[in-house]
C-alpha cells in the first residue's frame, strides 16, 4: 500500500458526499429511536458506497490515472491503496454513526449492552472493508459512477425475483438473494446472528470474497491500456 495514494483518495472525496451522509444520519436517528438496538451492517455498506463511489472509475474518466501511473507506482499498489482508503473512511463514519446510536439509546434510558456496542464496532470494520473490496472491483470494471449502477442492478435482481416468484416456496429466491447480498455487502453472518452463532463457512467466505474482488480488480487494472496522447 502507498501512503500518498491513500491520502489522495481521501482528499478526492467531495463535500457533497458528506451531505448524503448527513441524510443517512438523519434516517439513522429515527431507526435507533424506533428499533432500540444498535445495528450498523447495511448502514456501513451504504456509507462506503457514498464515500467510495467511482473511486477508480472517476480517475479513469478524469484522466487522473495517466498522472498516477507516470510515476513508479505498481497497479496492484494503486488498487490496494484505494481499497484501504475507502474502507478506513467507511469505518470512521460507521463508528460515528454507532456513537450517535449509543448516545440516543443512552438518553432514552435504555443503554445498549457493552457487548452490543463492541459487536457493532467490529461489524463496522468488517462490513466497511468487505463492501470496499466489492466496490473497488466494480469501479475497476466501469468508468465514472458506473460501479454504483452495476451494484444496484446486481443487487436488485434477486430482490425483485423473490417478490414475483410464487412457484412452490421462496426458498431458492432467498438463498440467491443472500448470496448476492454477501457479495455486495460482505460481512459474513455476523450482522444477523452475532458472533456467538457464526459459522466457519461465513468467516472463510468473507475473506474469500475480499481477496477474490481485489485480485480481479488488479487483473482488470493490469489490462487497462492508458493513452497519454490526448491528455
Amino acid at each position, binding site marked *: 500500500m502507498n501512503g500518498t495514494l491513500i491520502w489522495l483518495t481521501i482528499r478526492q472525496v467531495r463535500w457533497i458526499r458528506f451531505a448524503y451522509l448527513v441524510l443517512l444520519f438523519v434516517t439513522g436517528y429515527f431507526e435507533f429511536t*424506533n*428499533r*432500540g*438496538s444498535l*445495528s450498523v451492517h447495511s448502514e456501513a455498506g451504504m456509507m462506503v458506497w457514498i464515500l467510495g463511489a467511482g473511486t477508480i472509475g472517476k480517475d479513469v474518466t478524469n484522466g487522473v490515472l495517466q498522472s498516477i*501511473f507516470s510515476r*513508479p*507506482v*505498481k*497497479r*496492484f499498489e494503486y488498487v490496494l491503496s484505494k481499497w484501504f482508503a475507502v474502507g478506513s473512511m467507511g469505518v470512521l463514519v460507521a463508528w460515528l454513526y454507532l456513537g450517535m446510536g449509543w448516545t440516543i439509546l443512552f438518553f432514552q434510558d*435504555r443503554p445498549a*449492552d457493552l457487548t452490543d456496542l463492541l459487536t457493532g464496532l467490529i461489524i463496522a470494520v468488517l462490513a466497511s472493508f468487505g463492501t470496499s473490496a466489492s466496490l473497488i472491483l466494480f469501479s475497476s470494471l466501469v468508468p465514472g459512477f458506473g460501479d454504483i449502477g452495476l451494484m444496484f442492478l446486481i443487487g436488485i435482481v434477486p430482490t425483485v425475483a423473490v417478490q414475483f416468484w410464487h412457484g412452490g416456496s*421462496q*426458498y431458492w429466491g*432467498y*438463498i440467491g*438473494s*443472500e448470496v448476492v*447480498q454477501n457479495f455486495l455487502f460482505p460481512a459474513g*453472518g455476523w*450482522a*444477523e*446472528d*452475532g458472533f*456467538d*452463532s*457464526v*459459522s*466457519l*463457512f461465513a*468467516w*472463510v*467466505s468473507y*475473506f*474469500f470474497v475480499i*481477496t*477474490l474482488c*481485489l*485480485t480481479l480488480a*488488479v*487483473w482488470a487494472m*493490469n489490462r487497462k491500456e492508458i493513452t497519454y496522447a490526448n491528455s
Partner: protein
Amino acid sequence: MPILKSNPYSAKVMPPWMVGITLLLFAALVGAGFYQRQHPVVLKDLIQWVPAEQAQKAAAALKKPILYDFSADWCPPSKQMRRDVFKNREASDWINQNFIPVKVLDRPGLGENDPAITELQKKFEIEAFPTLIVWVADDKSQREVGYSDKTQIMRFLQGELAFLATAASSTPTVVSTPVK
C-alpha cells in the same frame, strides 16, 4: 500460468501472493462447506423454546398461550427478527414469562422438513416466514406475518395478552409489566 509469469519489475505485475491466498481461501471455502454440512451451526437466542409436542400440555398446566415462531435459518427477515427480538434480553425475558414459546424451523440445516413440521405449517396455513402465532385454541389464534421489530412485536403480543385476559374473565391471565 501467464498471470504469474509477468515481469516483477513491471507496473502491471500481479503479485503471486494475492493469487495464492485467493486459491487457498477457495479451497478452504469448499472444505468449510462440507464441514458445515456435517456440523450445522446452532443459532442461539435467549428464548426458552419448548418442543412442539410438549407445548399444549405445558400451556394447559401453566395457563399460558402458545407463541409459535414459524421461521427459517435461510430466511434473512427471520434471522433479523431473531437478532432484534429473540436475542434482546428485555423482550425475551418477557416472552419467556408470558408465553409457551415454540420454534418451528423450516428445513433446518437446508435439509428436508420433518412430517410434523409440514403438518403444523399446513394447520396454520403458513405462507411466509417469519410468522408469529399466538394460540390458545384452534378458533382463537392471531398472527403477525413478516419481519417486525422489537417495538412492533411487543405491541402485538401485549395486545393479544390483554385481549385474552378480558375475553377469558373466568380464567384471568396474569400479565407482567410490559417492556418499553
